[in-house]
């Protein structure tokens, strides 16, 4: 507030002074530079004195005169001030007059007529009942579900089309997306996977040690990592990094009408923007998962050294417990996660509204719906594998 303070100290005397001659007549003397800075406080002060004065006796016939002969300069806020006082006079049925105003300001004084327009009547917002808001929420949910189903249909059709016209896929975009979502994600996936491996085996070992069953921690941790933790942490990291990135990228394109330009050029935005990214998701999710599995198991091995389990014992125990089938099951699941995460990012990007805030909302929605879908797919997959034994 340094600047406004500096300005208010320049003008020592208040720029408007109230004086009352009798019950029916009052005058405001303006002086100096009346501007947005010098009016701070003065405006409120004059307005309060006016209200008090108008409140005395019958309001009819109160006459207020502004003396503007000592004014050195006026700015737009001075006119707003005059209009505010004039409107209060009019409302109370009193008179308002300005004397000694430099003729050059006259046109601006009448610029805003009729001044009633500047004082809109506040319209109370109608309250929505619980039933209405519940209905609207249900409608939104239904619309969202329909959007998802339509999108899934379009995406499936365009994916099939792309497989049959493999040369027409935007391989450049695919490579960019795969590098960005895959190779660039290696450090963070490795870091989290390492931590998960340590935590999983350490926590298990604390419990198992009491029963002298530390040797079983290796097989247990490895199975959990390969079937569940590996695919899950990879998918959640993909959702946070790449799904949000896809949503922001496509969202900005939507805001800038770039997506509209594709549509009006007769091109399918899904084939152009979504297919390369979903293909990239399909490629990188299982590879990242395999990487996460290896790092996690390695960190688990290191941790078990503390409990005196040699590498070879860990390794043999793991081989006995984990089949190739378990690894494959995890990788198939990871591939599904890859599809879901990249597709949700693209969908939310294409659903972006207008303005800068909309892109942020889309990125948030992309991450949230990706994680919800991951949980859903994981549940369905668990049920199927329980039933079929895969």
């Amino acid at each position, binding site marked *: *507030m*340094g600047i406004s303070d500096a300005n*208010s100290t320049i003008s020592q005397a208040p720029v408007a002074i109230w004086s009352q001659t009798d019950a029916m007549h009052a005058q405001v003397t303006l002086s100096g530079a009346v501007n*947005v800075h010098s*009016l701070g406080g003065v405006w409120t002060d004059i307005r309060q004195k006016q209200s008090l004065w108008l409140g005395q006796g019958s309001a009819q016939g109160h006459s207020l005169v502004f003396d503007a002969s000592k004014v050195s300069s006026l700015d737009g806020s001075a006119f*707003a001030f005059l209009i505010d006082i004039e409107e209060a006079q009019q409302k109370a049925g009193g008179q308002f007059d300005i004397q000694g105003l430099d003729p050059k300001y006259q046109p*601006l004084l009448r*610029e805003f007529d009729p001044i009633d327009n500047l004082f809109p009547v506040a319209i109370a917002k109608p309250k929505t009942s619980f039933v209405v808001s519940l209905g609207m929420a249900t409608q939104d949910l239904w619309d969202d579900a329909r959007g998802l189903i339509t999108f899934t249909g379009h995406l499936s059709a365009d994916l099939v089309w792309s497989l049959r016209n493999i040369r027409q896929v935007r391989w450049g975009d695919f490579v960019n997306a795969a590098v960005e979502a895959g190779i660039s994600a290696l450090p963070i996936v490795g870091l989290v996977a390492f931590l998960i491996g340590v935590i999983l085996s350490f926590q298990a070992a604390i419990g198992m040690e009491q029963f002298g069953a530390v040797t079983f921690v290796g097989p247990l941790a490895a199975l959990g990592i390969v079937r569940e933790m590996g695919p899950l942490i990879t998918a959640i990291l993909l959702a946070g990094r790449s799904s949000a990135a896809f949503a922001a990228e496509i969202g900005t394109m939507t805001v800038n009408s770039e997506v509209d330009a594709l549509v009006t050029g007769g091109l399918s935005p899904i084939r152009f923007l979504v297919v390369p990214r979903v293909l990239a998701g399909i490629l990188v999710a299982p590879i990242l998962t395999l990487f996460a599995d290896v790092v996690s198991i390695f960190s688990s091995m290191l941790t078990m050294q503390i409990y005196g389990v040699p590498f070879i014992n860990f390794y043999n125990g793991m081989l006995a417990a984990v089949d190739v089938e378990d690894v494959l099951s995890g990788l198939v699941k990871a591939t599904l996660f890859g599809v879901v995460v990249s597709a949700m990012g693209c969908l939310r990007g294409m659903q972006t509204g207008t303005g800068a805030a909309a892109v942020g909302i889309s990125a948030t929605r992309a991450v949230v719906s990706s994680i919800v879908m991951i949980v859903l797919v994981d549940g369905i997959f668990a049920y199927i594998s329980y039933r079929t034994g895969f």
Partner: protein
Amino acid sequence: MDALDNAIDVQNLTVGYGSKVLLQNLNFSVKNGEIFVILGGSGCGKSSLLKNLFGLYEPLSGDVLIEGQNITTAQGVERQKIMTSFGVMYQQGALFGSMNLLDNVTLFMEEYTHLTRDQMNLLARCKLDLVGLLPYETYMPSEISGGMQKRAAIARAMALDPKILFLDEPSAGLDPITSADLDSTILDLSKNLGFTFVIVSHELASIYSIADKVIMLDKDAKGIIAEGDPKTLRDTSKDPRVHQFFNRIMSKDAA
């Protein structure tokens, strides 16, 4: 000439980005209360010059004085004080998308004045009325057209009643009636309230009716090729580039 007669003094200004020089060694001044228009073909550096004038970009060399204060070297509070002495309307409007029009205009008032909320709202409504947007005060920027966004941006630039207003192509994209209304608002503000305007514009009709002085920039010359009253330039300039611009002659005919 007394330095305080000038709202803006430009001294040996070189405009560009890195090693790419757009405009070289510019010298001109804008008088108080003047409507000053910067002309030139696309890509000649008009908008870049404007961004150098109001201190958004640092010039490659030279100085810009706003009311005698050097904006290129000022720092901290001093710089902030210079910054609040002018208002800027950007080419794309640059309204804050998360606020309605009224809040867009009152934002700077909240930070720099001691007015109450009602007083700020009234003042903001006056500004919106000046640009013909009073009925749209509760609209979000995304809900109004591009031309309306520009006008709202002018209202926001005027929020603190600055003495200098920089407008980057204010009438581009406006219909002729709105554009003429805007011109008369600019004239009113300049003649009655003493506002100084620095405007980048291509609209010849608007330039003839409002400009006190124009400078014309050229890409190849990297500098000012004409300076003065637009009508005089149109009628008397011998320079084929200036003649071509003011008389809207197509390139192939001029050659």
